[in-house]
């Protein structure tokens, strides 16, 4: 007897999914790509929500997982001919997973702000390594490669078009969302939320808190790496800018704007932030950050639970 969320949840889910699937059919090319990018950044932000929203650990190091996902995919696409989509995904996940194990092992010994700072420091270490190890990573120029074709069940499919790539990303993101949602509602996920609510008490009732945090960081890192892999495949490059901590900061902002602890909130936050930045930068060029900062500050003051925070209980049922 597995309980089911209310039908209304699935109705909204189906509508949103249909809209996202239909979007590239009606949007002009620029906005097609933009919609796909929102999904990818949303996936990255959702991966970080596992830590921020569910476990109560703020990570400022998600750029490292994302970036290693990118460079992992790049490694597969640069070295293996013909380029393979699934090998790129596998390498991307392996790259991010490796970093995640490293960060999980060391950073989870620290709490609160010390955890946040240590994730930031780790991500900057990886940034410096990637930036300076030019022979392997291409240094500041990064790596470029060609896009692999879509292959399913051993069948050699067609090259991606922007529309089919959007659907591919949508499928990966939807499956990831459903998987992470299930994990957050599993006994394991409930322990993470107990840690968020009261860490010492969670220890006192018999949970080895550090182990749970380690697994949470690794899970989070894997999904962040998946997002990086998708981004690399979309843009046919891997660049050190995406390992830089500014990306990690944006990920936290997506969570705060959209609603932490909801999984879908980070997608809404990413969409809101990226659309706002796109719109503002057209009129204000490099000064767009000023109104963006003001809007963010006002949101933190007046909508502290984020755009979808009001639906938090319904979304976690």
């Amino acid at each position, binding site marked *: 007897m597995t309980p089911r969320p209310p039908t209304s949840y699935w109705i909204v889910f189906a509508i949103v999914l249909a809209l996202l699937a239909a979007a590239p059919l009606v949007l002009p090319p620029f906005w097609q790509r933009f919609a796909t990018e929102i999904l990818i950044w949303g996936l990255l932000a959702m991966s970080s929500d596992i830590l921020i929203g569910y476990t109560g650990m703020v990570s400022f190091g998600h750029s490292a997982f994302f970036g290693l996902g990118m460079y992992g995919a790049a490694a597969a696409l640069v070295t293996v001919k013909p380029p393979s989509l699934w090998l790129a995904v596998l390498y991307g996940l392996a790259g991010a997973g490796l970093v995640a194990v490293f960060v999980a092992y060391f950073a989870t010994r620290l709490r609160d702000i010390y955890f946040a700072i240590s994730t930031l420091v780790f991500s900057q270490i990886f940034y410096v390594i990637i930036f300076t190890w030019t022979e392997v990573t291409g240094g500041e120029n990064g790596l470029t490669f060609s896009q692999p074709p879509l292959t399913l069940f051993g069948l050699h499919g067609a090259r991606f078009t922007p529309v089919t790539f959007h659907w591919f990303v949508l499928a990966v993101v939807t499956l990831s969302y459903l998987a992470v949602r299930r*994990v957050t509602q599993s006994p394991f996920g409930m322990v993470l939320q107990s840690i968020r*609510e009261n860490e010492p008490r969670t220890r*006192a009732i018999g949970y080895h808190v550090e182990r749970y945090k380690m697994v949470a960081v690794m899970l989070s890192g894997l999904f962040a790496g998946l997002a990086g892999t998708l981004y690399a495949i979309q843009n046919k490059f891997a660049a050190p800018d995406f390992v830089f901590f500014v990306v990690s900061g944006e990920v936290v902002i997506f969570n705060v704007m959209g609603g932490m602890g909801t999984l879908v909130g980070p997608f809404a936050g990413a969409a809101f932030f990226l659309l706002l930045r796109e719109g503002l930068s057209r009129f204000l060029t490099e000064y767009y950050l000023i109104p963006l900062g003001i809007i963010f500050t006002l949101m933190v003051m007046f909508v502290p639970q984020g755009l979808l925070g009001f639906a938090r209980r319904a979304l976690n049922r």
Partner: protein
Amino acid sequence: MTGDAPILRTAQLTVRFGGLTALNQVSLAVPPGEIRGIIGPNGAGKSTLFNCLTGVLKPASGRIVFRGEDITGLPPYAISRKAIARSYQITNILPGATVLENVRIAAQSRHHNWSLLRHYRAYTDVLDRARAVLADVGLAGKEDELAANLSHGEQRNLEIGIALATEPKLLCLDEPTAGMSVAETHGTVELVRRIARNLTILIVEHDMEVVMGLAHVITVLNYGEVLAEGTPAVIQANPRVQEVYLKT
């Protein structure tokens, strides 16, 4: 009760905070099924003793033996697995979770806690255990309320419920009636008496009526040392205890 091997034994337990000796050579032996009262003035080492027994503090020297096993220095989660639970003097619950979830997560710690792919509510054995505990502590009708919204007295009982849900053999209650009304205190005393049928209990309590009524044996701590030990009647008649603690 006499003649049983003690379920809990401490031997020369000593805890120091810098230059201060918070517990000094404390040796206790608690037989199974006993309700042991721990009393003493503020700063006598009662909470330090609990923190030691539950792994929050590591003793400088001495040993803790529980059910024949040396558990000295084990971390809190491991102590909990050995079936020692505690409730806190200052309410220590999951405020943002429902009342049911507070005890469910505690009950879950004995089963299935590494499952990632099934819904937590699919584990009906854990839910049943949690609901039974809520009924025990008188919170059966409050399942879906947020723990933060309970009254103080209800939160105190939830606190005991969380501890009970971990299926302990030894329960350490740190001032379970602190801040309660007379009626609530009465309810909690009844609750402790009820659960004591299958448990060994250590209870720190400032309300003398409560502790004298509940405890089979009382240990008096003063400046981190055992000042006296005996039945409530013996303790009440002890002139030294009266001098340091009971004279009001």
